[in-house]
Structure formats: structure tokens, C-alpha cells
């Protein structure tokens, strides 16, 4: 009569979780994309010159993660071979049906185009200086045009600007809508809040900025190049601001829930104090939010030595990346641990090498880094930044 892992009463079909760790990865990865892109657009649209060294790096990070973003979804489907139906007969009332279109729009019209325009001079140059297969690849990438005259580059720059301007709302849409997928499920009180898209958006920006920050510092270390302190300081400042907003929103959600204390409150409160205690309170709020916020605040209030700042930035960024992952986990998995009858709790049994298990999840999380590696080999972001640092 007792079902293992279940306390209290679950509707019988609720015992098994429907959305696994793969669905945790999906908002995490798209969040990194959106965040990295918004950081890149800081330089372009808001003219924050200091973050220029990370501009290309941020774009490539966004692309690497964006290419992987649909894979966890695909792997999670019962019938991946049918996923093209989303394009054939998209259901206009379904938030999920929009994914395919938002994704394609963002990939082709925004990200690829912006990267292409920015790298065109380099691509044309490489297509003339390299040999063999590499040369062929670059030739293809030029799309058959080698006009990189001063005037042409000016046109590129203008168009690139417009695309970035379009790109910002697109990035907001890409991730805000992921939040909407959860926030619009009225059956689930843990998800159903209009704040969800906004919280997702800001946490996305936080995670994306943190990711670019560590990637930049790590890349510089590997390349034995000096870290541009003005750049990382500026990024850290923006990281701090967005994080404060994100934290405020999350606390607003928490306080609102606690104060309103609707029919679901007791059940959710109990869940947070038991099954979600480690991942929600300790990891997400404690280690993933309060600690990095305090560290960042300290760097804003006091001037530490560059070495200390670098250390603090790396630690906070890593904590943030873990914390935001915990946040996605708590939303996706947490939202399925309690019964919609508010009378019981189930537990998530993660497989190891099953299709939706830990191993594929880890592999999917490593894949963007592999892609990133190939991308920076193909389209090195450095010359640009070095040239920039020189002047």
C-alpha cells in the first residue's frame, strides 16, 4: 500500500515525474544564451566600451549554447522523430509551440547574422590566407562575397547595430517565454505566477553574464594573456545590478506567496522545508544568491587588489552558475514533487545512464563547451580584443 518515495497522498498518475533533469537543462541553457547575448549587446547598443573585449566571446558563447538548447528537449520527447510537427501544425494557443519559431528566428536572424557581420572581415581574410579544407570552410562562410571595403564594413556595422537592437527583445522573448511555459500553468501553484517570465529573464541575464565572465577569465589564463581589469570590473558591476534586481524579484515572489498564503501554501511551505531544503534554501538562496551577492557588494564598496578581485569574480561567477542551476532545478523538479491535491509528496528518481538520466545530462552540459572550443578555433575572438586593448 505504501509507495516507495511517496509521503501522503498523490493522485496515482502523479507519482512518476514527467519532466526530468533534461528539462532542467533546457531553461538553464537558454538562459545562458539570452544572458550572454544581452551582455554582448551592452557594448553594441548601450556603448559600454569597457566590456568590448568580451563582445565576440559573448556572442560565441551564446551561439555554442543555443546550438545545444533544443537537444535536451529533443531527447526528452517520447517521439523525437515527430518534433517537426511543431513546425507543421503549431498550436497557436500553446506556449511550447512557439519554441521552434522563436528558436529559429533567434538563431538565424539574430545570432548567426550578427556573428557573420562582425566576423566578415576576418572570414574574408582567412579565406585568402589559409589553405586546403580550412580555406574551403572560410570560403563557404564568406557566402561568396569578399567585399570588405571600408564602406562595406560601415554598412555591416550599421546593420549589425539594427540586428542587435532587434536581438535584445528577441533574447528577452527567447527566455521570457520559457518562463511563460511554466508561469502559465494554472494547475501548478508552484509555477503559476506572472512573475515567472520576469524572474527567468533576470536570472538568465545573471547566469549568462557570470558565464561569460568566467569564460573570459579562463580563456585569458589559458592563452596567457592579461585580463583587462576595467572590463571585468564593469561586467561585475552589471552582474551585481542585475543580480540585485533578480534577487528582489525572487524575494517579492516569496514574500507574496507567504503573505497571501493561499490554498497551496502549506503544502509548498512544507516541501521547501523538507524535500527542497538542500537545493532551494541552502544551494539556491544561500550559496547561490546571498553569498555571491555579498561578495559582489563588497567589491563595489571596497577596492580590492586586482588579484583578489579576480579571485572574487571567479568564485562568485561559479557560485552563481551553480545557484541558477539550482533555481531551474527547484522550479522544474520542485514543481512536480508535490501533489496537485496538496496532500502528498513524491520524489524524483534520477536515472544514471537512461535516456533522461544523469549521464546524458552531463554530456549535454559539456557539449556547448566542445562547440565553443571549435568556434573559437574557427572564429578566434582574440585579435579583435587584442587590437582593441592595444589602442
Amino acid at each position: 500500500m505504501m509507495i516507495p518515495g511517496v509521503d501522503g497522498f498523490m493522485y496515482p498518475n502523479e507519482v512518476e515525474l514527467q519532466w526530468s533533469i533534461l528539462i532542467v537543462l533546457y531553461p538553464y541553457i537558454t538562459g545562458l544564451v539570452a544572458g550572454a547575448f544581452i551582455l554582448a549587446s551592452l557594448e553594441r547598443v548601450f556603448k559600454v566600451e569597457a566590456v568590448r573585449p568580451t563582445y565576440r566571446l559573448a556572442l560565441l558563447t551564446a551561439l555554442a549554447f543555443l546550438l545545444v538548447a533544443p537537444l535536451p528537449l529533443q531527447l526528452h520527447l517520447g517521439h523525437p522523430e515527430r518534433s517537426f510537427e511543431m513546425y507543421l501544425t503549431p498550436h497557436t494557443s500553446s506556449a511550447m509551440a512557439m519554441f521552434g519559431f522563436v528558436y529559429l528566428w533567434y538563431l538565424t536572424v539574430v545570432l548567426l547574422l550578427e556573428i557573420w557581420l562582425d566576423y566578415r572581415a576576418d572570414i574574408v581574410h582567412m579565406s585568402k590566407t589559409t589553405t586546403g579544407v580550412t580555406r574551403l570552410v572560410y570560403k563557404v562562410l564568406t557566402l561568396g562575397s569578399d567585399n570588405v571595403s571600408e564602406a562595406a564594413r560601415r554598412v555591416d556595422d550599421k546593420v549589425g547595430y539594427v540586428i542587435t537592437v532587434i536581438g535584445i527583445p528577441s533574447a528577452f522573448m527567447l527566455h521570457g517565454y520559457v518562463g511563460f511555459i511554466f508561469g502559465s500553468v494554472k494547475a501548478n501553484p508552484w509555477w503559476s505566477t506572472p512573475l515567472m517570465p520576469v524572474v527567468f529573464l533576470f536570472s538568465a541575464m545573471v547566469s549568462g553574464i557570470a558565464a561569460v565572465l568566467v569564460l573570459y577569465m579562463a580563456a585569458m589564463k589559458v592563452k596567457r594573456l592579461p585580463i583587462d581589469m576595467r572590463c571585468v570590473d564593469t561586467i561585475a558591476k552589471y552582474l551585481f545590478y542585475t543580480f540585485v534586481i533578480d534577487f528582489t524579484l525572487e524575494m517579492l515572489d516569496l514574500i507574496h506567496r507567504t503573505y497571501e498564503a493561499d490554498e497551496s501554501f502549506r503544502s509548498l511551505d512544507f516541501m521547501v522545508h523538507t524535500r527542497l531544503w538542500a537545493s532551494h534554501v541552502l544551494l539556491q538562496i544561500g550559496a547561490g544568491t546571498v553569498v555571491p551577492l555579498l561578495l559582489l557588494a563588497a567589491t563595489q564598496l571596497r577596492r580590492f587588489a586586482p588579484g583578489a578581485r579576480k579571485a572574487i569574480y571567479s568564485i562568485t561567477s561559479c557560485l552563481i552558475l551553480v545557484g541558477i542551476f539550482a533555481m531551474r532545478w527547484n522550479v522544474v523538479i520542485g514543481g512536480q514533487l508535490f501533489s496537485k491535491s496538496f496532500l502528498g509528496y513524491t520524489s524524483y528518481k534520477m536515472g544514471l545512464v537512461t535516456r533522461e538520466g544523469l549521464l546524458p545530462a552531463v554530456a549535454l552540459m559539456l557539449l556547448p563547451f566542445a562547440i565553443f572550443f571549435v568556434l573559437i578555433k574557427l572564429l578566434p575572438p582574440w585579435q579583435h580584443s587584442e587590437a582593441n586593448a592595444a589602442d
Partner: protein
Amino acid sequence: MEMNRRDLFRIGGKLLVLASAGATLEQIMGSEPAPEAYKMADHWWGMIVDIDKCIGCGSCVRACSNENQVPNGYFRTWVERYEVPEGYVNPIVTSPEGAINGFPLPKPTNFKAFFVPKLCNHCADSPCTQVCPVGATFVSPDGVVLVDKEYCLGCRYCVQACPYGCRYLHPETETVDKCTLCYHRITKGLTTACCENCPTQARQLVDFKNPKDPVHEFLRTHKVSVLKPQMATEAKVYYNNLDGAVR
């Protein structure tokens, strides 16, 4: 007809998404009437469940399981046993294996106790069909919520969207499965397997579009409710004498 929020959303979405992609040929040609005798337009199916009559024997669960080959451990219908202690916040609810073998070991208590059979509410404004990305689950013209198992992706968004826990992923087909209100029976003039086998007529299939259906008299003379009315799903399974503790 007045325009509700969802209509607005639908129209907005339609304009937005691929108005350009164009209508399919069928949409343009219009539909020719179906040749068979059963006319979908003449029916609007639902059910009434009389809590006062349910004896918790699980005949409905077994019947459903046999009729529809419901996989083990999943349920298109199930029966819950409620005990509502006075002054307690939460009722004590059990449903051992969905009550497929009834309730073998009842604990005698002095609490108010009763059984609640559950099944898909075949909502007219169903949140599950709303979220399906491809149109694999839908409300049929005669008011039955179905899943097209040859079209379902298995994304399970609908499972999340159902407030009543009525959907599951079929472990073999890997598509979502749920109560069909025995669509293969009711369209042939039979009642559902669960209603056929209910020994006390605690559950009765009803057709709201049939003026002679006893449901009209029943709804006129009984105080009924639907599950989770705050979800505003226009559920079509009405419960007689539903206790406020039921969720």
C-alpha cells in the same frame, strides 16, 4: 457569443503565427458531412457522479483497465477514500493502486468518510488541450478530450497542465494517454465500461445535448459541483454532494 480571454488569445496567436504559412487544402475546401449514422454534432458528453452511492468497490477501475488495456500502475479512472477528521486541515486520503481491487483493509474510524471516483473531467475549456504544441490532444466535436497517439510527441506538457492528474505517459507507446470516455463505446450506443459496471449507478454517462437525458432532471433537483471549480475549466463531470474537503 461573447468573446472570452481564450478566444482573444487564439485569434491573436493565429494572426501572429504564420498567417503566411497558409491554410491547408482541407481547411479551404470545407468539410463534407460524415457518412456514418453517429452524428457528433448531436452529442455533448459528460458524466454525473453521485458520491452518496459509491461503495468503493473499484469495479469501474477494473472495467476501465480491461476495456482500455490501461498499463499497470497508471489510471484513467480511480477511486479515492476520504476521511475528514473534524478540525484537521487535511483530510486523510487513500487510493491503493487506484482502488483497482477496492479498499481491502479499511481502518474503522469515527471520521466522516466517503469515496470519490475520479476520471478525466472532459473539460470544455481544457487546459491540457490548450498547451499541446501540435494539436495531438483536443476536444472532439462531441465534447470528449482525446489524445491522437499517432501524432503525440510525448512532451507531457498536457500532463503538467491537467489540474486533476488524469493524464500519464503510456510506457509502451511513449505518448500521453488518458480517459477517452470510452469513445469507441459511446459512439456505438453503449455506455462507458465504468458506468456499465458500476453496481450502484454512482456514475452515469450523460449527453447534455439529448433533451431526454435524465441529466437535466438530475441537475435541476440536486446540488452539484465540479472538482476544483476555481480552475474554471468548464469540467463536464458533475459530482453530487461533493464535500468541500475533496481536491
